[in-house]
């Protein structure tokens, strides 16, 4: 899905060691298609394990080098807590909702 020049990736359900590869592929596809703005909709994300968090971490450096902006938004409190346990809320850009995410990415 695409909106205002940004690619939107929607995460649904649970991301764990068996499904994190799909998250990786979705981000890689977005980058491969040349997007420099990526919005990750976490509204329907119920659970993310360290395997999924690791996928986001693995792109931080590459995105910095290539000036790609990625913003996650719409997380439930439980999912947000998972990111903050590891301090990833400091390393990744996280917006409350899509509007805020669009501002952060532009």
């Amino acid at each position: 899905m695409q909106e205002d020049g940004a690619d939107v990736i929607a995460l649904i359900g649970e991301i764990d060691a068996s499904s994190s590869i799909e998250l990786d592929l979705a981000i890689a596809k977005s980058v491969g298609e040349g997007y420099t703005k990526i919005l990750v909709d976490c509204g329907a994300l119920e659970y993310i394990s360290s395997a999924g968090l690791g996928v986001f971490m693995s792109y931080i450096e590459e995105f910095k080098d290539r000036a790609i902006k990625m913003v996650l938004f719409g997380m439930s409190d439980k999912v947000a807590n998972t990111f903050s346990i590891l301090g990833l809320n400091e390393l990744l850009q996280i917006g409350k909702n899509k509007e805020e995410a669009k501002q952060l990415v532009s």
Partner: protein
Amino acid sequence: MNYMYKVGCSIENLKGVRDFIRGTLKDHDVSDIEISEIVLALDEMCSNLMIHAHHCNPDDLFELHIQVEKGLPVVFEIIDDGTVFDINQFSEPALNNIIHEKRKGGLGIRLVKSIMDKIEYQNRSGRNVCRLMKTVHFQ
């Protein structure tokens, strides 16, 4: 109360493991936020075991035991016959190194250590027992 879940080492089974933990702790009125942290830590321990000690062989089985008594720390035991991977012997990489090396792993151990109060390894009649303890608030 003691609960036990026995499962093959296929990572597709992690969802069942998580549902078992959630259901058990929910029945004992543990708060949602604590349940979600515990699930996260045990998902990591079980996926490590499945992938590294058992190479995702679905015919290799392991057991997850949960002991819950009101007023006491909850005890989780992961019991198997594989090679032991003692996370206490493993120092977690710094976050900066994980980012720099574009590693997808290494976060999990940091997570388990920050969530659980205590992690011990025992050998019980030739089987490996990884014992994790966590003080929770019963609502």
